């Protein structure tokens, strides 16, 4: 049965026929996705050990398909095409794959570097940019063909004046078909403007020591890089690039000694609640709350361990936090109004990531060493589903396709 043949049938017949055919042809891969459907309630779970991607349906808590042979996915992240049909998978081994969520096929795949960390899709959807560790820099591809459009080495001068290439972290899309990223080894933030077709790079130096990851707010205005080398973060206001990059929350630890950091925190999306931004402290069992107006420190909330992801439910009423090894079997939920911890959940061993459904009624949590994904109702805080998945790590839902910076 081809798509074409399906298209000739009256709409009312399509679904029952697809279902009955499916029953007839169980096991035949090409028919499983013949059903006409949208992608708004789909997503993917990265299965890091097996290098596979589980395509999931968030309405029915199902794994629809498994896409394999995606290479080393040990720190893989995913972005979506503008039409929310294709997932761009950024593998640790430098592999960039474009996966069709509806058919489960890898439509394009390129080995574009030796070691990469993540990427972003441009505002107009035409470009996909990848942040590379080795060789350090950014590569930009056509999002439909994965043909290379630009290569931008992340060069800088080291203390001896010698030219070096830096690992690139915290690559995000910004309005105006621009990309912003940070140079881990150089302590710089770079802005690349692709609006005229050719990359135009603006560099900001001395932004702070060892930026390890970054995020951009939902309006695409503020880019914030977390700093590993010092207590503080770097803030870049894209509305006023001429003002440069400023340091915020300097000395948030107030000189207290840091704990050993067994895992770098992640900055993803924007944990905003009202007029406050919620951020992970490095080397401390604390979530930092900052005033998003003047970026002063409002509160340091003591939590279970060193936070990795600090994520706000879409309605901003709760913040969910997971933790670094060895405290990584726990997720805590903080009420944003009272700033009190209202729940401490144990979804399984080695919790790596959390993803809210588009309107936040549920959250999916990956527990790597328990080989499962656990789904919670965010209102009752009760578990509502559990899916088998081998070494699950990142979870990404397609509503990210339409959000700046995700």
């Amino acid at each position, binding site marked *: 049965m081809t798509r074409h043949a399906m298209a000739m049938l009256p709409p009312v017949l399509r679904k029952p026929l697809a279902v009955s055919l499916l029953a007839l042809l169980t096991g035949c891969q090409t028919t499983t996705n013949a059903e006409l459907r949208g992608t708004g309630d789909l997503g993917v779970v990265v299965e890091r050990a097996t290098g596979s991607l589980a395509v999931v349906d968030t309405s029915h808590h199902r794994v629809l398909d498994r896409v394999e042979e995606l290479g080393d996915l*040990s720190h893989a992240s995913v972005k979506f095409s503008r039409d929310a049909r294709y997932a761009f998978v950024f593998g640790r081994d430098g592999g960039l794959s474009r996966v069709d969520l509806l058919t489960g096929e890898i439509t394009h795949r390129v080995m574009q570097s030796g070691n990469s960390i993540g990427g972003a899709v441009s505002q107009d959807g035409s470009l996909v940019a990848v942040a590379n*560790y080795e060789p350090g820099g950014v590569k930009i591809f056509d999002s439909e063909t994965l043909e290379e459009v630009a290569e931008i080495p992340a060069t800088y001068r080291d203390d001896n004046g010698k030219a070096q290439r830096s690992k690139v972290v915290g690559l995000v899309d910004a309005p105006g078909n621009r990309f912003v990223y940070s140079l881990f080894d150089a302590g710089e933030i770079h802005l690349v403007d692709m609006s005229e077709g050719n990359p135009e790079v603006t560099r900001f130096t001395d932004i702070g020591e060892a930026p390890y990851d970054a995020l951009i707010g939902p309006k695409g205005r503020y880019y914030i890089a977390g700093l590993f080398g010092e207590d503080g973060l770097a803030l870049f206001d894209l509305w006023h690039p001429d003002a440069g990059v400023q340091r915020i929350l300097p000395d948030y630890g107030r000189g207290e000694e840091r704990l050993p950091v067994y895992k770098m925190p992640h900055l993803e999306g924007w944990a905003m609640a009202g007029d406050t931004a919620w951020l992970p402290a490095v080397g401390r069992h604390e979530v930092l709350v900052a005033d998003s107006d003047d970026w002063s420190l409002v509160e340091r909330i003591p939590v279970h361990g060193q936070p990795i992801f600090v994520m706000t439910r879409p309605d901003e009423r709760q913040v969910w936090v997971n933790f670094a090894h060895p405290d990584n079997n726990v997720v805590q939920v903080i009420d944003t109004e009272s700033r009190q911890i209202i729940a401490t959940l144990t979804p399984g061993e080695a919790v790596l990531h959390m993803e809210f459904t588009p309107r936040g009624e549920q959250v999916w949590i990956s527990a790597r060493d328990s080989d499962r994904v656990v789904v919670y109702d965010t209102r009752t805080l009760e578990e509502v589903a559990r899916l088998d998945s081998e070494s699950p790590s990142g979870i990404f839902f397609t509503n990210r396709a339409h959000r700046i910076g995700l």
Partner: protein
Amino acid sequence: MPLPAIRQLLLALCWLPMAALAEGSLSAEREQALETLLYQDCGSCHGMTLRGGLGPALPMSRMNAYSLDGLAALILNGVAGTAMPGWKGLLTEEEARWLADHLQNDNPLDE
């Protein structure tokens, strides 16, 4: 404590050092947990295939540039001025030596 129990304990103590020398006294479960730690948690910076990430690659040749004790000490104490933490809060000396031995002799990245 009744006498036979003490005798048994003494007997066990006599055997322990021998066993430790021969095969190490880490349980199979603990060794499994250390292997998971190495590839999954150390792997979050060094890569699950040890090919590197924010931290450097850990190929067999590089690991054998250290002595076993030196590498174990590096794991326990970390490297000042870098993102490599000291793991002594979570690992015993014996466990660090097991990891060092694994990196030097059972390293999947044979480069």
